[in-house]
């Protein structure tokens, strides 16, 4: 009970802060939108190659860009915690009986929700550019859910890293190092069938790829079995991420 209420109270606080400076929500949309438009035009005819699940590249690309956005955005999730650490907010919260897990959970949920909203905006742009959703409403909701799940897991890891390293520089370095390659080691932009064997092997173990595949199948409504298994994998990934963040939080408490 305490956990749920505390999470909601904190979620409200994080959300208000985001809504008050909405510029960040839009800034982080800019680059995915640019990718969507540029790649969508530039590689329009790539779907003529065999191996794509659809015959419209924008259709193929939209879920890829949505997941990319989820990843990029969630990867920075730890920044909020770092800010709270420097501002003394974390200490101020820790002297209350607040559920410790709620501190992590509220951050993770907040990122997941922000990503869901942003993903909707990307989807709308994708639709304008010609993408369709054969998967229907259920397909769209599932796609958003998949993106949010990945975002949750990544945000948890990012928060964990923030608590362990307590340095912005480290977080920036890690995000810059991992984020873009993780996208390219997935089927966000190119059909799995067209990947070199070694990339395909890595992609199979890449949560970003699970999310891209899950989101795409959901949007297409073509393979719900695959959607379910990718969803399960992502769920497990999110749980692991949260466990990591919880441990990191313990470590942080011990080190101060």
């Amino acid at each position, binding site marked *: 009970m*305490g956990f749920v*209420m*505390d999470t909601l*109270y*904190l979620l*409200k*606080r994080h959300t*208000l*802060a985001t809504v*008050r*400076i909405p510029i960040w929500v839009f800034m982080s949309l800019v680059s995915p939108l640019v990718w969507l438009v540029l790649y969508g035009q530039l590689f329009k005819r790539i779907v003529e190659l065999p191996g794509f699940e659809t015959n419209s590249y924008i259709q193929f690309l939209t879920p890829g860009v949505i997941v990319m956005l989820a990843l990029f955005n969630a990867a920075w999730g730890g920044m909020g915690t770092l800010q709270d650490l420097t*501002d*003394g*907010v974390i*200490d*101020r*919260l*820790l*002297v*209350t*009986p*607040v559920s410790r897990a709620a501190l992590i959970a509220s951050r993770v949920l907040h990122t997941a929700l922000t990503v869901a909203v942003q993903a909707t905006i990307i989807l709308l742009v994708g639709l304008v550019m010609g993408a369709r959703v054969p998967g229907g409403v259920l397909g769209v909701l599932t796609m958003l859910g998949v993106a949010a799940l990945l975002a949750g897991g990544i945000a948890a890891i990012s928060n964990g890293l923030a608590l362990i390293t307590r340095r912005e520089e480290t977080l920036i370095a890690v995000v810059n190092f991992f984020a873009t390659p993780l996208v390219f080691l997935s089927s966000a932009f190119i059909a799995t069938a067209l990947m070199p064997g070694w990339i395909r092997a890595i992609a199979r173990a890449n949560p970003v790829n699970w999310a891209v595949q899950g989101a795409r199948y959901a949007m297409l409504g073509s393979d719900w079995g695959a959607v379910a298994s990718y969803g399960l994998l992502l769920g497990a990934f999110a749980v692991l991420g949260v466990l990591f963040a919880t441990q990191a939080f313990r470590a942080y408490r*011990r*080190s*101060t």
Partner: protein
Amino acid sequence: MDAIVAEHLRKTYRNGVRAVEDVTFRVAPGEIFGLLGPNGAGKSTTVRILATLTQPDGGTARVAGHDVRRDPAGVRRKLGYVAQVSGVDKHATGRENLTLQAHLHRVPRRQVRERVERVLAWVGLTDAADRMVRTYSGGMQRRLDIALALVHEPEVLFLDEPTTGLDPETRAALWDDLVRLKRERGLAVLLTTHYLDEADRLCDRLAIVDRGRVVVEGTPAELKAGVRGDRVTLEVEQRPAEAAAVLQSLDRVLEVVPNGREVIARVLHGATAIPQLVTVLERAGITVQSVALQRPSLDDVYLFHTGHRMITDDLAPDGLGSGEERRSWAS
């Protein structure tokens, strides 16, 4: 029952810094207890241990009857904590800050509004309640910090340098408020400070902490009485070093330190000794321009026990209290 009991607390940080070596004290309900000490003495660490923010390596501590290690949740329900560095959320309003804190402190939902209003009025922030905290002045932020620590009506209040950076008027107002709080609610207050006047005026009892240890404890009056002699400051026209040597030879002069054009002496029965001091100096050919007499202040107590002057400016920890420095009056 004591509101705060700290017994032989010890804490070494992960980086090897022995922040607290042996700290023991008790604070009764309705008492304001001060921790005084130079930078790096371990005051904040002690407070953080009591506020369950950090774990001690040794010793025990109880706050409002709850053991900080075995029952931190119990401690948290009873305590209010104002950190040395502000913990306000700058991108929220004052009211939002307080409402969140009240909820997290498990104030019954129906009472939250009223408590928030009351505490806002109490710290004089009602008019600014709906402004973003980042637009607050330093003093307003500090008052919000204090409001955050009080919104759930704690039994024990920890204040880590609550008045640093406040203007004299705001400081005085806060002092009055603290006295009111302890009188009206029987709140126990643990306060760290660098201001000796603050400690003198506010604290019922205090402990001077140096390098992780309590070096002396008592009421301000007791501590002052413990310093023998009065402080006599003589301004001389020339040769202060020589003047110091001359004075040192007198029996009732306990200690002398030249300080620029002045000579500061700690003298038994200072008032009656002044004529004698002036005469010896004149005889040695040194003209005295002014004489000032001071009963021992907390400043002297502090100096006597830690060997350094109470200054808020940064003192490099390694430069503190070397052997020679310990008993000298200079800084």
